[in-house]
C-alpha cells in the first residue's frame, strides 16, 4: 500500500508541476493545489498505513495509527487552504488590474 501511495504521490506531483509551469495564472493555482494534496498524502504515508486503530484513546485497541503525521497534515490542510484562497484572490486582482492572466505578459520590467 505504501509503495502504491508513493507512486500516486509521484504522479500527482508531476501533474501539479506541469500545471505550475504553464503560462496561465489559473492553471498555476490549480497545480499548486494538486501539489498540496500530494504532499499531504506523502506525509501521512510516511507514518505507515493501516496499522492500529484511529488515534482515539477511547478505542480499546492494541495499537494506534501514528498521530504525529496526522497532526502535521491537519495543520497543512488549513495552511494550504489559506494560501490557495490568497493566491486565488491575488490572481483575480492581477487579472482585473492588468487585463491579462498570461504570466509572460505579467513579468517584471527589464531594469528594475
Amino acid at each position: 500500500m505504501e509503495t502504491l501511495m508513493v507512486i500516486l504521490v509521484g504522479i500527482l506531483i508531476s501533474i501539479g508541476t506541469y500545471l505550475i509551469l504553464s503560462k496561465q495564472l489559473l492553471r498555476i493555482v490549480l497545480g499548486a493545489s494538486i501539489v498540496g494534496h500530494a504532499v499531504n498524502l506523502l506525509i501521512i504515508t510516511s507514518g505507515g498505513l493501516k496499522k492500529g486503530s484511529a488515534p482515539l484513546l477511547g478505542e480499546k485497541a492494541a495499537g494506534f495509527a501514528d498521530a504525529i503525521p496526522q497532526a502535521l497534515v491537519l495543520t497543512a490542510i488549513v495552511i494550504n487552504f489559506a494560501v490557495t484562497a490568497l493566491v486565488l484572490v491575488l490572481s483575480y486582482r492581477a487579472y482585473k488590474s492588468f487585463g491579462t492572466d498570461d504570466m509572460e505578459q505579467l513579468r517584471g520590467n527589464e531594469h528594475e
Partner: protein
Amino acid sequence: MFYTFIFLPLISALFVPLLYKYFNRLVHTGWFVLVVPLTIFIYLLQYIPGVAAGDTYKYTLSWIPSLDMNIVFYVDGLSLLFGLLISGVGALVIVYSIYYMSKIREALHNFYIYLLMFMGAMLGLVFSDHLLVLYGFWELTSVSSFLLISYWYERKSSRQGALKAMLITVLGGFGLLAGFIMMIMMADTYSIREILANLDVIQNHALFIPAMLCVLLGAFTKSAQFPFSIWLPDAMEAPTPVSSYLHSATMVKAGIYLVARMTPIFGGSSVWFWLVAGVGLITLLYGSLTALRQTDLKAMLAYSTISQLGLIMCLLGVGSLAVYFGASDSGTVFGVAGFAALFHLFNHSTFKGSLFMVVGIIDHETGRRDIRYLGGLMQVMPITFTIALVGGLSMAGLPPFNGFLSKEMFFAAVNEVSQAGIFGLSKIGLLFPIIAWIASIFTFVYCMIFIFKTFGGTYRPEKLTRTVHEAPWGMLFSPIILGLLVIFIFFFPNVLGKYILTPALTSMLPMTEMSSYDLKISVWHGLNLELVMTIGVIVVGLLFFKSSKRWIQAMRNYPQGLTLNHWYNKGLSGTERFSTSLTNGYMTGSLRSYLIYTFAFFVIVLLSSLLLLYGIRFDFSNDAAISVFDVGLVLAMVIAAGTVLLAGNRIVAIVALGAVGYMVAMFFVIFRAPDLALTQMVVETVSTLLFLLCFYHLPKLTKQIERIPFKLTNLIISIAMGLTVTLLALSANGHKMFEPITSFFENAFELAGAKNIVNAILVDFRGFDTMLEISVLAVAGLGVYVLVHQRSKGREQHENE
C-alpha cells in the same frame, strides 16, 4: 571592571547625540568625548608595573558559554602597548579635532560616534583572546574606518575612497576569518593562549600553511602592504584627525599587531619569514619611491606611512627568526630585531601623528596642501615649522630624534639577516641591507621635500586662498606633545624600553632568552656599519635633494596605466559589468524561469545526493495490504488529476480538482485519520466554492498553444520532479533508522485530559504552533479582504471617472 573600560567608548557613543543636541551650542562636543580616552589611558597606566614585572591578567565575560563563545580579555605586554597607543593618541587626536572640526559647520555627533566606535573596536581587538571575538572587532574597525573616510559623504572622492578601503580590508577580513577557522579546527580551541600552549598540534598539521597564508592576507590588507596598499592614499579623504589616528597611528597597525601576536605560532617557518620580511621590504621600497612623486602633502604622508609600515613588517619578519633559533645567541640577535619593530612602531605613531597634524594645520590655515603652491611658511608659522622639523627629521632617521634610534636598529637587523645563513638567505640575503639602504635614501629625500618645500623657499601669499596665521594653541597642543615625546624618547629610550617594550617583546617571542643588557637602547654604538650606512644615507640623500628639480618631474610623468590603482579601477568596473550581465541573464522577470531554477535545483541536489550517498534502497516487506477499493481510489484520483491537466473548460477543471480533494478525504478515512477526513471535507467544500466564485470573474482557460520546446521542458521537469519525490519517499521507507516517537504522545489523557491524540498534540502539546497557524490564517484572511475591498474602491473610481 576591566570590561567597563574596554566597552566605555562603545557605551559612551550612545550619549554623544544627546550631548550634541543639548550642549553643542555652548561647548564643543569633543570636550565630552575627550573624557573617554583619557579615562582609559589613566586606567591602563596602572597595569604597567604589573605587566613590566611579567604578570598577565585575564578577564572572562560569559557570553554564550554553551558554545564556548566568551569575551575573554587578556592583558599582556603587547596588548598593553597597543592599548596605551590607542587611548593616548586617541586623547591627543580628540583635543586636536576640537579645534580642527568646526562646531558650527560639521555634523559632530556623527564624527564622534564613528570615532568612539572605532576606539572601542580597536581596544577590543588588541585585548581579545578569543579568536572569533577578535575577528568581530577586526571587522568593526573596517566598518568604522569606512564611515570615517566617507564622513564628508557629499564628495565623490570620499565615497570612492571609503569603498576602496572597505573592499580591500574586508577581503582581507574574510581571509582572516578563514585562517582563524582553520586554526580553531587544528587546535580545537578558540583561545590564543591555549593554542600557544599546544603549538605542536598546529605546527605539524596539514592546514598550517593555508591558515598562515589566510591570516597574513588579513594582516597585509589591513596594514596596507604591497600590493594591497592602494586603499591608504585614498583614505586620506577623511578629515585629518582621522588620518592621523586611524590611518597612521592605530588602525593600520592592527595588521602589525596580528603578525606580532601570531609570531609565536607561525614564526620559525621559512614561508612566514619570507612573506612577512619580503613583503615588508618591498612595501618599504615601493612606499618611499612613490612618496617622492606626490605633490599633495597628505598623499605624501600616506605613502610614507605605507613605507614605514613595510619597515615594521620587515623587522617583524626578521624578528620571527628568533623563534627558529630559540634560546641561543642567534635567537637573541633576532629577538632584538623584534624589539626594534615594536620600538619603531611606537616611534612611528609619535612622529607620523604629529606630521599629519601639521599637514592638517597647514591645510586649515592656508587652504592648500599642494607643495607646488606652498613655500616659505617658516616665517608665518614658526611653531608649526618646528614641529614639522622634529617629526620630519625623526622620520628621516636623524639624531637627536627617536627615529634615529629605531632606524639604526633596523640597519643592524638587516645586516644580521644577510648573515643568518638559513632559509636560502646565504644567496640573496645581501638584498636586505641594500634595499633597506636605498629605501632609506628615498625616505630621507621625501622628508626633506616635505619640510623644505613647504616651509623653506620664498613665501608666496598670492597663491594661497586665505591670509595665513599661526595655528591656535589648542591645535598646536597635540603635535607639540607628540614632538616632545619624539625628543624625550631619544634621550631616555630605556624608560620606554624597560616598562613597555620589553614586556611586549616577551609576549611576542616568549621562547627567546633576552636579558635587559641585550635590550638596552643606546645612542652611541661606536663607529659601526649602521652608522656608516646612516651617514651614507644623509650624504647621498642631500645630493638627491639638491638635484631634485631635474629628476622629480620625470618621476611624476610615470604612466598612469602602470599604476596599481589603474588595475584596481579596471578590475572593479569589469567585475561590475560582468555581474550586471550575469544577473540580467538569469533574472528574467518571468515566474516560470524562477520556478524552473527552483525545481531543477531540487531535482539535481536530491537525486545526486541520493545516488552519491547510496541512499536508494527499497524495502517492501512492511507494506500494508492493498484492497480492491484502494486500487479503484488510486485510479480514480489519477483520472481526476489528469482531467484537471487536460480540461479545456474551467468548470470541468474545478470539479475535477474538487474530486481530487474529496478522494484525499477518503484516503484519510482508510488510513484511520477521522479528524483529517472531516477537515479535508470542510476545507475542500469551501475552496471549491471559492474557486467557483472567482471563476466568474477570471478568463476562460485558453487552449495551450505553446511551442513544442516549451511543452517538452515542462514535461521533463515535471516528470523529474515526480520521479525524485517517488524515489526519495521509497528510499525513506527503505531506511527505517529510528523508532516512531508516536508512543511518546499516547499519554495524552494523563497529561492533557484528551482522548483524541491528534487534538491533544494540536491544542496542547504544540499549542503555540497552532496559535501561529491561526495567525497565518488571519493574515491570509486580511489579505483576501484587502484585495477584494480594493476592487470595490477601484470600481468606484472607475464609475466616478
